[in-house]
């Protein structure tokens, strides 16, 4: 490029910007359609400026449809799974970082393999396992509390068609990556912090709460964010493991609204899609604050 004169360079630069602009527009069009259509009183499958603006599409999610329940279900299940992943990955990642054992690396690669396998392929055996476990739990509860009480109890401790089962499965799928993130993170946290805390007189709980957790916040935020986003976007797992309408989550609600036979309600679908993607954006914005918080300076000069 050094042989080019200044105007030629400027032309080349302008050309690059034009191409980049076209690519950006191409990528942004679906989002633009989504936002515009969700406020359009009569949207079509083509992008167009609405003749009449409305928030009816949004209110219908929560009045005509059971959108509020879907959202709460999604938040409870994905939030619960994320919390479980963060706690387990924090503790496990710390242990995996500090331990020296021959099985450490094989173990880490093994759990990563779980993450690498397409989870559609795992869903059938997983369902079989959970179903068997569920039957076991059910028979124990029926014996203990009788058939009627057992049905109520199973809603909370059952593994099929329940919050708990979904939380456990979603968390199990996100845990390997989170463990890797936390193990790598703790590898970079000097042991001298903990030893300094020991010398300062901190017991185990104080060391975890006042030194390790604050130090681990960027790692926990990263692990939590990835877990939340992957679990939030998961469609297949809630589809397979839940059947009751009262446990329906947002992606399934969206999917079923799309499948209705009579006609496609673009306004409702667009609004629902926006409601569905908003928590991911909020989670990202929330985690970003921790992700960028560097902790250089405590160790070394």
């Amino acid at each position: 490029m050094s042989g080019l004169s200044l105007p030629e360079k400027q032309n080349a630069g302008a050309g690059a910007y034009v191409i980049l602009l076209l690519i950006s527009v191409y990528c942004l069009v679906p989002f633009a359609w989504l936002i515009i259509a969700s406020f359009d009183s009569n949207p079509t499958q083509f992008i167009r400026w609405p003749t009449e603006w409305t928030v009816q599409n949004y209110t219908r999610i929560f009045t005509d449809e059971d959108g509020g329940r879907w959202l709460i279900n999604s938040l409870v299940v994905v939030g619960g799974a994320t919390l479980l992943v963060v706690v387990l990955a924090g503790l496990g990642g710390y242990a995996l970082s500090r331990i020296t054992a021959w099985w450490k690396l094989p173990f880490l690669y093994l759990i990563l393999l779980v993450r690498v396998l397409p989870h559609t392929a795992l869903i059938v055996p997983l369902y079989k396992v959970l179903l068997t476990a569920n039957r076991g739990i059910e028979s124990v509860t029926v014996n203990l509390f009788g058939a009627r009480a057992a049905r109520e109890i199973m809603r909370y401790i059952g593994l099929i068609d329940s919050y708990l089962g979904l939380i456990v499965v979603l968390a199990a799928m996100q845990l390997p990556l989170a463990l890797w993130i936390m193990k790598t993170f703790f590898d970079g946290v000097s042991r001298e912090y903990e030893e300094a805390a020991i010398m300062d007189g901190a017991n185990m709980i104080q060391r975890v709460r006042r030194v390790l957790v604050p130090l681990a916040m960027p790692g926990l935020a990263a692990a939590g964010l990835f877990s939340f986003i992957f679990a939030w976007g998961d469609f297949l797992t809630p589809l397979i493991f839940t059947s009751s309408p009262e446990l329906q989550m947002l992606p399934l609600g969206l999917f079923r609204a799309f499948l209705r036979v009579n006609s496609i309600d673009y306004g409702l679908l667009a609004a629902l899609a926006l409601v569905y993607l908003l928590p991911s954006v909020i989670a990202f914005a929330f985690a970003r604050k921790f992700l960028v918080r560097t902790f250089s300076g405590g160790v070394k000069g």
Partner: protein
Amino acid sequence: MAVIELKNVRKSFGAVEVIKGVDIRIEDGEFAVFVGPSGCGKSTLLRMIAGLEDIDSGDLLLDGKKMNDIAPDKRGIAMVFQSYALYPHMSVAENMGFSLDLAKVPKAEIRRRVEETAAILQLTEYLDRRPQALSGGQRQRVAIGRAIIKKPAVILFDEPLSNLDASLRVQMRAELQKLHRELKATIIFVTHDQVEAMTMGDRIVVLNRGNVAQVAPPIDLYEAPQQEFVAGFIGSPRMNIIPASLAAKGDSTFVMTDLGWAIELPGRLPQDTAEQAGLGIRPEHVRLTSTQADFTAEVTLVERLGVESYVTIEPSGQQLVVRVEGNVDLSPGDTAGFMVDRQHCHLFAQDGTRIDLGGRP
């Protein structure tokens, strides 16, 4: 007030014994330095005193009380880490006051003592900053402040100056010595840097492969190293060790070096001394001479530092270094004559122990 005693202390990591029966007594208020090459066990020994490593066998006594199984924070010991390990999520004041906060000292009292400690260390204006907003020297001071705020009887330093640049290191050496005089605490300072050891310690403990090689004040180590290892470790450039054979010659000792020249040292050779030995001569105890040369050799390297110069010679393939005051008018390839200062020669037996000649002070 604290006397530290180690009695036949041992430690193994798996099959490797890293501390092989160490006996040391460090007096109250003493500034003791543990020095040795990397892997000699000095940091492990320090961590055993702190309580961060268990003691496999032997006793650790503080003022006569056995401390082996006492929790680290109950020993009255503070430690400054090599990396400082300041908590990055706490301010300077919180870092220094953390141990008091854990001990449930009232907030006002913590504030008072943090300010008092900060004043000693000239950190008052930085109390609200985070560690990452401080320079290396300031972080070092915060780490010291965190250690001294509980007024410990013993302060342990684990290579605390190794992360500082050279000029700051010299300054911190002086500050630490001043602090030691003010606090009157017993200090153990671990370093691999013999200059730090020589300049700071009241007494130096030289460690080699998990054993104590010698415990002595700095100048004694320099003038009368009890082992060839200590002779080689203390002093820079290293002491020259020349293989030689010894023979008694009346009241003096005849030393025939393997390099083909001989000198006669004052003092009687002890009986039953093996014939083969090492002749140790420090670079500053060999002089350039044109008239009374003990030997001549070709110069292979001249390093001029201004205040002194180091001349390297390689007679018969053995490298020797000679220190000359100021500049020197020699260049590689020149041949020069050298004379050995007989008052400052050391003899070491094949097993590395010192041979003292009789009738010498």
